[in-house]
């Protein structure tokens, strides 16, 4: 019985990149993350600034802001998720086609932020009802922080989430 080696060690040949199909698909998914325009509060303005001329998100292929969740594959939750809005956010997440990712932008999306202690209308963090891939802290985080979060997400996708 031939014992199949645990890990196929691919000999390194410079110039020729052995790409298992999954790597190629992950490379494609990584480089064309289409975010859904989904601004709730202050972080939406910083997301717009990140998409604008100076910190251009389009350099990484993520500049195509699709209005309909059907064509988007990255949901950037930018701003305070209030109790009235939480069910809508969940429906929007469910409407997105698979390999979908969630980036929680800003302290309000991570843990309710400034309003976490006494504000009754705020859901304390979007990960209470959504699987979040990348957390970008800050109130509001700088556009560079959003781009750094995006690059982290791309690394995560490349490793195959």
């Amino acid at each position, binding site marked *: 019985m031939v014992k199949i080696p645990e890990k196929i060690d691919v000999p390194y040949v410079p110039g020729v990149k052995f790409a298992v199909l999954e790597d*190629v*698909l992950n*490379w*494609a*998914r*990584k*480089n*064309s993350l289409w975010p859904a325009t989904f601004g709730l509060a202050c972080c939406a303005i910083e997301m717009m600034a990140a998409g*604008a*001329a*100076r910190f*251009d998100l*389009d*350099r*990484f*292929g993520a*500049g*195509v802001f*699709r*209005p*309909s969740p*059907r*064509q988007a*594959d990255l949901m950037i939750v930018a701003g305070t998720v209030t109790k009235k809005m939480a069910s809508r956010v969940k429906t929007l997440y469910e*409407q997105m*086609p*698979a*390999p979908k990712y969630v980036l929680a932008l800003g302290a309000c999306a991570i843990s309710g932020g400034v309003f976490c202690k006494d504000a009754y209308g705020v859901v304390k963090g979007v990960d209470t009802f959504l699987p979040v891939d990348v957390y970008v802290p800050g109130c509001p985080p700088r556009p560079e922080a959003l781009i750094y979060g995006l690059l982290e997400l791309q690394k995560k996708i490349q490793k195959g989430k």
Partner: protein
Amino acid sequence: MEFTGLLNTFLGKVILSVAGVMIVFTFNALIAVWLERKISGHIQLRLGPMEVGPHGLLQSAADGLKLICKEIITPQGVDKKLFAMAPYMVFFPSLLMFIVIPFSDKLQVQDLNIGLLYFFSISCIATIGIFMAGWASNNKYSLMGAVRSIAQSIAYEIPIILSILSIVILTQSLRLSEIVKAQSNMWFIVPQFVPFIIYLISAIAELNRTPFDIPEAESELVAGFHTEYSGMRFAIFFMAEYTNMFLVSAMATTLFLGGWNGPVLPPVVWFFIKTYAIVFVIIWVRWTFPRLRPDQLMNFCWKFLTPLALINLLVTTFILKLL
């Protein structure tokens, strides 16, 4: 040698032309999408895709590959058969239109003697596909987008046909290669400048691109008729739009800019230079103008473009009679 024999058998010609069309089609789909994102970037003081390949060249490949392996969602309350068929109804006409395009004097799939009429009749089928998409996806925004696209396409068929009619009067034939040959000494844009402008405007309207993109108006109807489409189905709509853009500018080159006539370079290169010049103009227009309101758009067509095209037709025939 049997190789050249294969060439002039019927089967060989079919295989060669299908391969040629496929190459031009995929080449254009990749380049046009990349071109649009880079040109829109530079118009908007930013760089556009940079990281994916050298200067973002592989960006449209990445987009296409990602869209292929995305989940295709068929929403529950949707008319399944129509919903699945709509993207192909929009996409196939643009493939069929490649048959009559004269890339150069030798490179033409089939030189039909009614080439021009064939081209414009096939281009109307796409509108039915858009309406099927809008109606089938059981979504208020899509329905409104579909109804708007029907009104717009029907309205802008008239000026587009009238503007090319004056060309047919000049060349007395619908065969495209003859039209191109007739322009060897003077391009038709010189005597027929007004129809060229009318043709360009109504071509942009046929493509549903700003300032006439009311069927998929982002800021009003979420994403218009393709709101419910995801994954590969949306990619087919996306490719159909860019292929149509290439075809419409190819027809503009053939009719007005003297097809493959050009002094030094081989004819095919001339053809592509002129076509992509017009593609650049179409992209440029998209990123400078806001969107028209549906009723303004209709008034502009019926009350301004169509009469202007009729007057031009009158003037052309009158001058022809005089000469």
